[in-house]
């Protein structure tokens, strides 16, 4: 079946602009996660949705970052007034918490964001 998909694969923007990154999880997965991966580092947690609600947004670095999942499926990560330090690969993952005893997360290909 289809895996997690993310669009766009690459996004180049100018400092101060607004960007939206989209994630389409595996069908039926109720949990969705956003992570950010800087060069040479492991992924860092940003936000986690269970259904439509953000269950844990403790990883969002500041109020320029916001994410939504209005229908409990597709999610959009929104970044306002982008800064050069926001440049990274943004990874989305999904899992099917609730029917199994563990939380194996399946990752999408990522969106590489470059802020000039």
């Amino acid at each position, binding site marked *: 079946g289809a895996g997690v998909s993310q669009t766009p694969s690459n996004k180049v923007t100018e400092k101060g602009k607004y960007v939206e990154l989209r994630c389409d999880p595996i069908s039926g997965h109720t*949990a969705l*996660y956003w992570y950010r991966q800087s060069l*040479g*580092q*492991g*992924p*860092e*947690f940003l936000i*986690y949705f*269970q259904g439509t609600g953000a*269950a*844990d947004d*403790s*990883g969002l670095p500041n109020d320029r970052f916001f994410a939504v999942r209005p229908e409990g499926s597709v999610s959009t990560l929104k970044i306002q007034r982008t800064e050069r330090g926001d440049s990274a690969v943004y*990874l989305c993952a999904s*899992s099917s*918490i609730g029917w199994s*005893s*563990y*939380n*194996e*997360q*399946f*990752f*999408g*290909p*990522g969106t590489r964001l470059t802020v000039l």
Partner: protein
Amino acid sequence: ELKVEQNPLFLSMQEGKNYTIYCNYSTTSDRLYWYRQDPGKSLESLFVLLSNGAVKQEGRLMASLDTKARLSTLHITAAVHDLSATYFCAVDMAQGGSEKLVFGKGTKLTVNP
């Protein structure tokens, strides 16, 4: 705050040799995951370790978990070039009330002919 430390961060080895990657974490968790990442690609799930003493094997890779020591190992047997990649361990924070994963910095493995 949970810390996950991997070592070594860089590993260069010859084909046919054995080696072990270590993953230490700083708080209680019974669930640990290993992922593989090829350059420019996303993360591929390798192993899910769910309890103390868990051992999983797939081909030339074997992962184990010791929750009392807060240590997981990824053992490579008779390495081949195709294993060259970055390997991440990640700890599940469910016991701490969150479903997020906390990742180590990764071990970049290069297998030389």
